[in-house]
């Protein structure tokens, strides 16, 4: 019998294993959605609104239909005729007065009105993309333009965009004790106040969204290949809400996906329309976004206007934090758009500190802009920005050292588990440890020397801190559903051990860059004492994986990985019974370690592969035990996980031009146990780049008419290699207390902590209270001129 090469004495967990998935990517053999084709496929091009707000008076498709190769022009009315439902918002937020949020209908294809530039209201199907484009230009649509509003604060006193949504307010949500917070602020020795804007970002995964719909008329099976972070959720929504096809006739496949950062969590109009159109015309239909469409119609991120107040006592201890935020939700509530500025934001306002009184009120507001939803960090970067800008400003106002003011307010290791005033219970952490390590790495003591040296070169040097916390590993299902989630947030995993002892793992998590094929293989290989090359990880196909909630909110390893541990442990228990029988021992006397089942206090043992083989060839086998060697498990977390850390940025500003250069960046993060440090560092680097991008370069800007001013890489500045320094990344470890791996999640930390660190450094260098992100040269130059 072939025995897989065992890594019997080396633990796979904790090693920087090279990625199994890389070989196909570096040789150009990845299979992304746009790489797939179906015989007879048509190409779709969407009709999109050129106006931010308008009534559609008429759509004349005659000339378009005359273009050679055009098969059909379909509109929102056609879709409605076929009985398709609206795109739902998956998280119902309760308002201050106890009522439900006001969710405006969101038809996948607009019918009578359009509410943002780029909103799809139809699609052209043609034999070639060129023909579809040509025809789309010839569709004559008459619009009656109406006044649009893009600023969320202004929207609250503008004409209602949606009938029945008064003042364009989707919800007025509160959390915390208002009276106690007001009282504590009133008696505080010092109150720091800031008005902050968290700039709108456009996610920009480098792979544009794409979809390929195929319907088999004989079986009724609908297959949708699409760029999704969570294919099962896509299937659930398309089936239960949009009602394209029943779940058992619908298969969603997310093959290699080229980055997501949140933007591919959501169920969008385009893939919905592509699958429906494929059925309607009886041919496969393919659509791939052009980048300009991504800018217009991918869900955007952030876009908050906030007033915040932090009260401190005479010793500098935080006594109260009060926050009011107006969150721009865009023209419609995207799949999780409602939850981001509420449960993923307000609940994080305690940060790392023992602030006893916190109150937050959030107005979620509709505007004539692209829907806003989760983008890397999702609510937590916004919360960190509020807390850490306030704390830094308070330190400056009081003449205190910003690191020490933080330190005296931090939750101490002995305080865990720590109940915050904003609902969460932090299970564990050591915030002082990451602060100390970061201070040492950046050589804080010698900052004045570096500042003086920079001044001699005509540069203003500044330093900025950010001690962030995030809640991830989404999420305990019961709690999430109580708070309004429309789905549970557990994860599923299945392990099939093949007769020869090699292993195929099926996970409901989805990798679009995170490296699950390696990390999850390490987790399973470690449990079984086998080599990671003997473990294959399968994900992204509802036809192969039982169920899943996908990948976002830094949840994959903490939740999906834990499900695999559960399944692995079931297999080990079964294996012990098989081994006990074969070795003529009691089950209780069999141990499993380093890939072998051993009878305690004897030299009798069986390898993992031998037991697997016996399970499939059950001759010498326990009576009553099912043959076969595969198990599955669902894992529902008991709590969020709470990664935390300290980020420190140093910038230099060219006084003549206002150019900000990030010259050093230290990140010390506590992600709990680390399975693959190489991958974890990579995740931090990527998150940092996006956070630095938010602080210095990126801004999604609409003009007053609702036209997107930053609709291409000519204007929207994605960080390039030469915009960034080498990052210095390190970790501290307090294992998560409530999942079997002790892991917390690392995908978003970089993007959560870094904007505040960079802006604290910029404002430090400039000597100003605030500067709205991004700190572009002209803004900085004007701030320097006073």
């Amino acid at each position, binding site marked *: 019998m072939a025995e897989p090469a065992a890594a019997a004495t080396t633990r796979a967990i904790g090693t920087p294993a090279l990625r199994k998935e890389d070989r196909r990517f570096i040789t150009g053999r990845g299979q*992304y959605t746009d790489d797939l084709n179906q015989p007879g496929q048509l190409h779709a091009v969407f009709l999109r609104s050129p106006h931010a707000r308008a009534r559609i008076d008429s759509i004349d498709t005659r000339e378009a239909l005359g273009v050679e190769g055009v098969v059909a022009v379909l509109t929102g009315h056609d879709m409605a005729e076929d009985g398709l439902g609206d795109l739902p918002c998956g998280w119902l937020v309760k308002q201050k007065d106890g009522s439900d949020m006001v969710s405006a209908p969101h038809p996948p294809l607009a019918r009578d009105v359009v509410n943002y530039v780029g909103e799809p209201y139809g699609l052209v199907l043609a034999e070639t993309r*060129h023909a579809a484009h040509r025809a789309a230009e010839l569709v004559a649509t008459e619009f009656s333009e109406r006044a649009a509003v893009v600023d969320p604060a202004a929207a609250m006193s503008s004409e209602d965009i949606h009938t029945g949504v008064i003042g364009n307010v989707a919800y007025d949500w509160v959390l915390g004790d208002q009276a106690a917070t007001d009282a504590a602020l009133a008696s505080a020795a010092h109150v720091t106040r800031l008005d902050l804007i968290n700039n709108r970002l456009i996610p920009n995964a480098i792979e544009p969204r794409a979809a390929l719909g195929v319907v088999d008329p004989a079986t009724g099976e609908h297959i949708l290949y699409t760029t999704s972070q969570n294919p099962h959720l896509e299937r659930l929504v398309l089936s239960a809400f949009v009602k394209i096809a029943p779940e058992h006739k619908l298969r969603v496949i997310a093959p290699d996906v080229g980055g997501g950062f949140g933007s591919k969590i959501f169920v969008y109009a385009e893939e919905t329309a592509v699958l429906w159109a494929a059925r309607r015309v009886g041919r496969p239909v393919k659509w791939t976004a*052009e980048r*300009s469409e991504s800018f217009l119609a991918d869900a955007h991120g952030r876009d908050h206007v906030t007033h915040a107040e932090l009260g401190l006592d005479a010793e500098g201890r935080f006594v109260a934090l009060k926050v009011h935020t107006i969150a721009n939700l865009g023209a419609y509530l995207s799949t999780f758009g409602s939850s981001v500025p509420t449960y993923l934001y307000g609940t994080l306002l305690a940060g790392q500190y023992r602030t006893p009184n916190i109150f937050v009120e959030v107005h979620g507001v509709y505007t004539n802009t692209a829907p806003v939803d989760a983008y890397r960090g999702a609510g937590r970067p916004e919360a960190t920005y509020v807390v850490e800008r306030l704390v830094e400003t308070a330190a400056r106002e009081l003449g205190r050292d910003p690191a020490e003011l933080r330190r005296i307010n931090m939750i101490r290791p002995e305080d865990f588990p720590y109940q915050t005033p904003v609902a969460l219970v932090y299970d564990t952490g050591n915030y002082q440890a990451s602060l100390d390590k970061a201070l040492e790495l950046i050589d804080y003591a010698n900052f004045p020397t570096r500042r003086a040296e920079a001044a001699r070169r005509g540069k203003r040097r500044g330093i900025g801190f950010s001690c962030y916390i995030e809640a991830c590993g989404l999420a305990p299902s019961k709690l999430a559903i109580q708070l309004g989630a429309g789905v549970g947030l557990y994860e599923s995993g299945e392990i099939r051990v093949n007769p020869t002892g090699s292993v195929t793992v099926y996970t409901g998590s989805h990798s679009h*860059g995170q490296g699950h094929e390696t990390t999850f293989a390490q987790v399973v290989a470690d449990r079984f004492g086998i080599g990671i090359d003997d473990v294959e990880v399968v994900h992204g196909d509802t036809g192969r994986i039982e169920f899943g909630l996908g990948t976002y909110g830094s949840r994959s390893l903490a939740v999906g990985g834990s499900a695999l541990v559960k399944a692995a442990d079931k297999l080990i228990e079964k294996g012990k019974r098989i081994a006990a029988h074969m070795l003529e021992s009691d089950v209780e006397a069999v141990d499993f370690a380093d890939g072998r089942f051993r009878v305690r206090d004897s030299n009798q043992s069986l390898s993992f592969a031998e037991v697997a083989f016996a399970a499939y060839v059950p001759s010498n086998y326990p009576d009553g035990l099912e043959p076969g060697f595969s198990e599955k498990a669902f894992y529902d977390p008991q709590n969020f996980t709470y990664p935390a850390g300290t980020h420190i940025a140093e910038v230099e500003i060219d006084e003549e031009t206002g150019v900000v250069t990030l010259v050093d960046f230290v990140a010390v993060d506590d992600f709990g146990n680390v399975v693959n440090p190489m991958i974890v560092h990579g995740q931090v*680097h990527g998150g940092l780049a996006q956070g630095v991008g938010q602080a210095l370069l990126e801004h999604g800007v609409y003009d007053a008419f609702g036209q997107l001013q930053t609709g291409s890489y000519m204007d929207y500045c994605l960080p390039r290699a030469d915009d960034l320094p080498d990052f210095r990344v390190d970790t501290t470890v307090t294992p998560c207390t409530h999942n079997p791996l002790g892991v917390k999640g690392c995908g978003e930390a970089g993007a959560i902590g870094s904007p505040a660190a960079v802006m604290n450094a910029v404002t430090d260098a400039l000597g100003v209270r605030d500067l709205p992100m991004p700190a572009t040269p002209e803004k900085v130059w004007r701030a320097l001129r006073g």
Partner: protein
Amino acid sequence: MKVSLSVNGTSHTLEVPANTLLVEVLREHLRLTGTHVGCDTSQCGACTVHLNGRAVKSCTVLAAQAEGAEVTTIEGIGSAERLHPMQEAFREHHALQCGFCTPGMIMAAIDLVQRQPNLDRRAVREGLEGNLCRCTGYHNIVSAVMAAAPRMTGGGGHG
């Protein structure tokens, strides 16, 4: 119109409309889907290939302009068994995550090292300004290029 070109050492003659881009020839006619398209303004660099030995954005070259040219794509620089030193270095240094920008990044990096063998990290960053990556923060890409450069130019290492 008729276009003849050599791709990864194989000659092809194709009948294509005049408005066909080189990247469309590669992806749609030759099914070499390792070359990706990430933008429509010629900035992201995901479509980078070598045209007569120099890195170009294949989304900004007409197929007709490549008449008679030698084109090399990511599929043509190494194999799964025998990787190009740059491919190997990308893997060793975790210089890719989602993999979408990676083929263009590797092709641009090879061209960079060929033009400028003595690179420091700053020069690598500047030399790759034509390629966007949203996953890695570039840190490990820079490390990979630094590691590949001496191997490509025979300055040591394996590969």
